[in-house]
């Protein structure tokens, strides 16, 4: 399953812009228009001991989304090998992860940053539909 990481996209765009500054400037109006139309949907997910809220989300295959992750208590993990997501959710700021699922099915995301005695069952489900 291919997943693009939003932060990487931003970095790549900035690097490209640095290398081709003039061309970007000329193309800017058209690029802004395209970005407005393609703005990915943002889904907010909150972590706290020992649950994610919501505990289940549904995504559409091929449709990019941004998962906006935040924690209301302490650092948590957000990890799914099949979805190729592996990040920490810090306690003091939100973390954006861009996802474009290309396989339908149910996937489990777990907290893999140990957070206490109920940590072992801290998980959520991501359902990807056609």
């Amino acid at each position, binding site marked *: 399953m291919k997943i693009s990481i939003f932060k990487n996209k931003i970095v790549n765009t900035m690097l490209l812009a640095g290398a081709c500054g003039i061309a970007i400037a000329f193309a800017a109006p058209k690029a802004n228009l395209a970005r407005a139309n393609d703005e990915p949907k943002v889904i907010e997910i909150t972590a706290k001991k020992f649950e994610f809220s919501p505990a289940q989300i549904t995504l559409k295959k091929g449709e990019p989304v941004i998962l906006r992750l935040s924690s209301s208590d302490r*650092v948590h993990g957000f990890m799914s*090998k099949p979805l190729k997501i*592996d990040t920490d959710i810090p306690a003091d700021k939100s973390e954006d992860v861009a996802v474009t699922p290309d396989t339908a099915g149910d996937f489990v995301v*777990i907290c893999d*940053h*140990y957070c*206490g*005695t109920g*940590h072992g069952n801290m998980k959520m489900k991501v359902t990807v539909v056609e």
Partner: protein
Amino acid sequence: MENKFDRRSFLRVSGTALSIGALYSVFPALTRKAGAAEGMTRTLAELNGEAPAPFSFMQLSDTHVGFNGPPDPLGTKAFESAVATINGLKHRPELIIVTGDLTHDADSPDEHAKRFKLFKEISSRIGGAQIKVVPGENDAALDGGDMFREFMGPTHYSFDHRGVHFVALDNVSAGRPAVGTEQLTWMKSDLARFPKTAPIVVFTHRPLFDLKPEWEWFTSDGDDVMNALAPYENVTVLYGHIHRENFHQAGTTKMYAARSLIFAFPDPATTPQKKPAPFDKAAPFKNLGIRRVNGNAYGNDLQIEEVELATAEFSGTVGMDQMLKHGSNDAKDE
């Protein structure tokens, strides 16, 4: 130098039927030829100051001292039973390794400290054996291993025992399932002095491969560890965390998980949810026991001896004594 170790005779274990703890017999490269044995002995002695000799050791795991169920209302009884059983063995092991989750995590540091003290008190009843431990996430993931170091010592280290090199690897105290660059660099440096055929035992808490990532049965940089170990031909990895037996081989590296001393997890291949096996009042130590493997200096003709805990009737101290009846039947519990 590399051919002086006989890889076939290095480490013989009892296959996939390890139990309460697993007793391993190690036969480091002893040969029929006295001259060859002397030469090999000299080589090992130069490398690590340890003369090779047959020996046995036992792995215990996941004692979770302080856990009081459900599903297991017996607390430390299985751990204490294991200790008493070890002490009752005719040929007692001279080395015990414990692969993490010595204690069950506690919200209060004071309570967690009590659990470490209790672990030390119970394990100290094992007579005549060195005890070497690594942390599990319950021991060390919340405070970066500070309390573990205070009570048990460093979270990673190495030592030599009768010609075998042991590496204790910490894949929990980073908070996440990870070994980390610093420790990996240390391990590579630690192993660099050994020939590729040297007998090496790595013991750690979590599996170093993707056994079941959605149950957190993995180590995120486990591939880096395995790549670092890959050039060595006689590596055995012993771990815990999954509360059940498992065998996995990558290249020549063999990896064995031990059962816990608190409760069992089900087979992830047939069970959708990570949920402890229910407590069986009629057989409270079901699946527990000790498998002992005895060998000879040539590394073949192994003799397997089972020590089974009898648990039909027990209560209090007298009951504990009743439980420790040594049987000769194989544990048919898997």
